[in-house]
């Protein structure tokens, strides 16, 4: 079969279809992803299985190639958009079927910072990995973060800053959490172009994440530790 031949998703067996969905996610083909999700559901797949095996599996490849400098922001945004199309179908079904909860993150750029590209990527990749994400948008004062963390019963706080003039504000937020005795209630992840690991440590964050893929890995890792210590 030549490459120009149309691919009929419904004619592929489960394994081929999932492989094709990995590639379609990689290429940011939203309609094809929506179709693939629907086909798998029609074949009797559990919504949670579609999420983890087809979508999260595909986004893991996208994330790894983003981390390795093979894909860049435009491609990742398209992939995440395709993923979102599939998620829109799955979300209500996941809620009905009581699928396992991975974790919940409150995320936003800090006060004074409008640059939300990195924050949006993290949000989308986190959703791609099965996390619930509450996006506070741009320009968040310390009160906005604290309120949302409490109201949403979040596990993770994600803060982003792209400017040297705004990055110190992250410390203001963390210091306030400490003052109010709430610092240990949350995993605090920070990111943004001018930051680095040492900066993250110095301001008291749990981790600095250099890109969205690392943010997902780090969030999973810390959620694992949190569960372990809770069960200890």
């Amino acid at each position, binding site marked *: *079969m*030549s*490459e*120009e*031949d*149309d*691919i009929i998703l419904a004619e592929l067996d489960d394994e*081929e279809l999932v*492989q*094709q*969905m*990995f*590639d*379609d996610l*990689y*290429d940011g*083909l939203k309609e*094809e992803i929506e179709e693939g999700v629907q086909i798998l559901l029609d074949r009797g797949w559990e919504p949670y299985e579609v999420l983890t095996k087809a979508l999260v599996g595909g986004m893991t*490849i996208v994330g790894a*190639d983003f981390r*390795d*400098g*093979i*894909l*860049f*922001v*435009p*491609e990742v*945004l*398209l992939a995440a958009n395709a993923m979102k199309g599939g998620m829109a179908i799955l979300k209500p079904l996941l809620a009905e079927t009581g699928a396992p909860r991975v974790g919940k993150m409150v995320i936003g750029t*800090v*006060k*004074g*910072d*409008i*640059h*939300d*590209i990195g924050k949006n990527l993290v949000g989308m990749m986190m959703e791609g990995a099965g996390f619930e994400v509450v996006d506070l948008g*741009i*320009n968040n*004062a310390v009160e906005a973060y604290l309120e949302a963390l409490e109201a949403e019963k979040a596990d993770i706080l994600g803060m982003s800053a*792209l*400017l*040297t*003039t*705004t*990055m*110190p*504000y992250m*410390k*203001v937020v963390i210091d306030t959490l400490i003052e109010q005795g709430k610092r240990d209630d949350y995993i605090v992840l920070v990111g943004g*172009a*001018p*930051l*680095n690991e*040492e*900066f993250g440590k*110095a*301001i008291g964050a749990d981790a600095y994440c250099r*890109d969205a893929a690392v943010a997902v890995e780090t969030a999973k890792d810390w959620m694992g530790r949190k569960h372990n210590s809770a069960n200890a």
Partner: protein
Amino acid sequence: MSNAFTDLLAEKGTLLADGATGTNLFNMGLMSGDAPEMWNTDEPTKIIKLYRFAVDSGSDLFLTNSFGANASRLKLHGAEKRVHELSRVSAELAREVADTAERKVIVAGSVGPTGEIMEPVGTLTHSLAVEMFHETADGLKAGGADIGWLETISAPEEYRAAAEGFALAGLPWCGTMSFDTAGRTMMGLTSEGMVDMVHGLDNTPLAYGANCGTGASDLLRTVLGFAAKNGTLPIISKGNAGIPKYVEGHIHYDGTPELMARYATMARDAGASIIGGCCGTLPEHLVAMREALDSTEKGPAPTLEQIREEIGDFSSESDGTDGQGPVRAPRRGRRRG
């Protein structure tokens, strides 16, 4: 086309640009989260002091305090109606400082990114972006800027929109991008790709180059990438003074004046003719850079190995211009026709 910038560049061969704006303003009491542009009208004496840092340290050119003076960013502070005013005043204050200097100094009107993603991936339309850049450029021109200075851009679409904005304002310009992601811009543009893009514009800049990013080593590698393409336009190099660290309540960049001095001569050797610093670059760094540029002759271009040894390691193995970087795995499914 001749103007103060091209004349001075022709006369001196190499120009020393300025250092950091944000870092210096913090040292004067700017609070994190506040818009630095508000100080143009609220704290003009501090802005004049900032400009004098550059002039007194030997800069041939300095940028105005207008990086965030576009409608999209000022909206955060409820000041989207003040784009023209804050841009104009930033240039007026600069004009005053430049005109009272004992030598010729160029006022370059800083224009930063909108902070939004452009179509088709994002939502910002080309025409709206052009309009925003046009507004800022108009204000800078009205305030007496010699040239416009686009900086820290990631998307080629945004660079193109700014070129049109400067054309509409009738303001000659320079423009740099930030190569902070595996040696490429956040949007994936390589140094080579930028040279092609810039030389293909209708309204070409007077000079192009790189600023900010992830440290001086990466920036030098990017300049080598520009030079390898043998473009016709002069190259700008504005690197950060090392990497940011949090020390006793404020941000400190770990690059020493000696390191930045060596970076400056290496940038010239690599092919840049407008050389300055970016975040973390303080007056003492500029003084050392001036001294180093004045006391040495241009030498052969540094190798990547020399840069690594003298300035520090790169943030990534490849910058996408050497065919050595990682590539995607073979497809599992079939490509669509």
